[in-house]
């Protein structure tokens, strides 16, 4: 068997490489998204007082600290055995919506839309944000401002854009000032207008390129995420877990996130530090499931806001029901931004927002606790055990990127099978093919810094390896 290695994928976080396996006849048979560095964060946390965990885990990754902060604080709530005051819950939800906005805006406008505007076969030197600025300067600037809007909300709440140690076990440290709330309100119309332009862009692209929907990760899988307990609607911070299959049938419902380990197993492959979670009843790898925007829209009964629900209906109409193509992650991200923009004023109008009580106080009341929330890339679990003094004895983090690992492998294989008919010695890999493989990964917007706690960046390297592992061709970019 031969391997085609793409090392690493550009424009995603962390250091990873891709191997594409081909048989003796030169046909693509499998693909693997490797992760090659490990930071040992779970071991590092042992012995730490659990109240430190939100601040520590927020430093897992400089890209999505807010997701870890909030999830860790929820695990801390569990150790204390308390429910945060309603005001703290509203404030945490506001911050999570802001995180969705800024992260999705980065994924769509900075990283992915150059491919839509400029094409997969365009020169990689210009197929970037600057090329996009040349092609559509107003959209590029608006996309940047949309991300800034999300960051600004986070700053209003947490006081710092990065690693805001604001959420704590039992609640939050500070509220939202009326001036900050007014500032957020003022920016909502522009944020919504930008999002709608983005939605028009992706729908127009999909109309012109239906093959991308068919090729970029179009296969049946399970979908997992949080839903609102009362109506199984779209949820991003609290709620219960739901799992649906590729036909939309609900196969597990109303799962308390605390019980996640009864339903989710974690496989470890020898060639990757990225754990591969799977749905236990179906085993590994048949229990492959996807998380993130695509999953959240597939599992929910509805979103609960006017514009986002309108788009959700079109999303489902275009997908023919359940959306099984990873390419639709892009569309789903924009719908989620829209939902966030619609939910934010509801939270700002919530009378609880201005109450004084922000934090529930307690000692250690539970020795095991699980925090669960929806990070932009998917469902995030922080599972802690502590001793009676509150010192961490065990940590397990299940990260969105890991949960999509199996699906990313399959997406790469599908793209490779479609665009490479036969791999032979000294074959030239077309630039467009590499771009498409990278984009297939970017559909999931993985953050490997989170998933493996890895650092490191390298240029793009493509290697062909023969049946005995020898490099028979190499391409660098």
């Amino acid at each position, binding site marked *: 068997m031969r391997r085609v290695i793409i090392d690493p994928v550009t424009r995603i*976080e962390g250091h990873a490489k891709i191997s594409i396996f081909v048989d003796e006849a030169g046909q693509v048979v499998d693909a693997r998204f490797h992760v090659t560095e490990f*930071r040992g*964060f779970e071991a590092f946390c042992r012995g730490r007082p659990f109240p430190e965990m939100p601040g*520590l885990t927020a430093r897992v990754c*400089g890209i999505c600290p807010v997701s870890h902060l909030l999830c860790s604080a929820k695990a801390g709530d569990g150790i204390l055995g308390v429910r945060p005051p309603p005001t703290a819950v509203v404030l945490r939800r506001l911050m999570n919506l802001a995180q969705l906005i800024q992260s999705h805006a980065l994924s769509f406008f900075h990283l992915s839309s150059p491919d839509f505007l400029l094409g997969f076969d365009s020169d990689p030197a210009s197929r*970037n944000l600057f090329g996009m600025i040349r092609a559509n300067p107003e959209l590029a600037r608006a996309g*940047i401002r949309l991300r800034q809007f999300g960051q600004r909300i986070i700053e209003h709440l947490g006081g710092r854009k*990065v690693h805001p140690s604001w959420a704590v076990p039992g609640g939050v440290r500070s509220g939202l000032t009326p001036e900050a709330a007014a500032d957020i309100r003022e920016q909502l119309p522009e944020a919504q207008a930008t999002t709608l332009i983005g939605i028009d862009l992706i729908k127009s692209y999909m109309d012109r390129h239906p093959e991308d929907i068919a090729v970029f990760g179009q296969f049946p899988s399970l979908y997992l995420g949080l839903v609102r307990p009362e109506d199984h609607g779209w949820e991003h911070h609290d709620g219960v877990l739901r799992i649906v299959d590729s036909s939309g049938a609900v196969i597990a419902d109303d799962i308390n996130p605390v019980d996640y380990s009864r339903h989710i197993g974690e496989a470890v492959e020898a060639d990757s530090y990225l754990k591969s979670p799977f749905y236990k009843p179906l085993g590994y790898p048949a229990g492959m499931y996807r998380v993130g925007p695509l999953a959240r829209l597939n599992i929910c009964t509805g979103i609960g806001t006017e514009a986002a629900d309108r788009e959700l209906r079109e999303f489902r109409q275009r997908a023919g029901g359940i959306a099984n193509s990873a390419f639709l992650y892009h569309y789903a991200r924009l719908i989620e931004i829209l939902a966030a923009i619609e939910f934010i004023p509801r939270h700002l109008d919530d009378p609880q927002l201005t109450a004084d009580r922000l934090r529930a106080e307690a000692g250690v009341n539970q020795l095991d606790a699980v925090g669960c929330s929806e990070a932009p890339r998917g469902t995030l679990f922080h599972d802690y055990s502590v001793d009676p003094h509150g010192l961490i004895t065990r940590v397990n983090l299940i990260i969105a990127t890991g949960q999509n690992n199996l699906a990313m492998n399959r997406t790469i294989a599908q793209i490779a099978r479609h665009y490479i008919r036969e791999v032979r010695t000294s074959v030239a890999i077309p630039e467009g093919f590499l771009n498409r493989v990278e984009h297939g990964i970017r559909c999931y917007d993985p953050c490997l810094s989170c998933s493996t706690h890895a*650092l490191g*960046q390298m240029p793009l390297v493509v290697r062909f390896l023969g049946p005995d592992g020898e490099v028979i061709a190499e391409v660098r970019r």
Partner: protein
Amino acid sequence: MNPRLVIGYGNTLRGDDAAGPAVVRRLEGRPGLTTMIVSELVPELAEAIAAAGLVVFVDASETAEEVECIRLVPSKVQPVGHSSDPGYLLALAEVLYSAHPLAWLVAVPAREFQLGAGISPRTQRFILEATRLTESLCMNYPC
């Protein structure tokens, strides 16, 4: 407008990677300086960079043998990952805001990046020198 901006970046949990933030912490509160400490460079920093006349980035460097001072120019090569690099941010500031600040990178030699290790004694010594160099760059820049 604050014309002199110093940005220290690195993960403060990872040993010598905290060198950039450590330098900037020593400069916090100096008159005429705006300081920022971030774990990674992200695109929206371009706005603050565009508002400055001088920008000094301070970062740990695995390859530097001595404290290095490197003149930066805008780079339109999009970096790997969600994070940015100084040249890319300068290019964003140029393209988006028509800003052309003078920019330097102060590279602090660093070797130990173990999680929770703290800054090594060797890098600590370089931090003192890097702090003086960064301050000198800023003070020599006319307001």
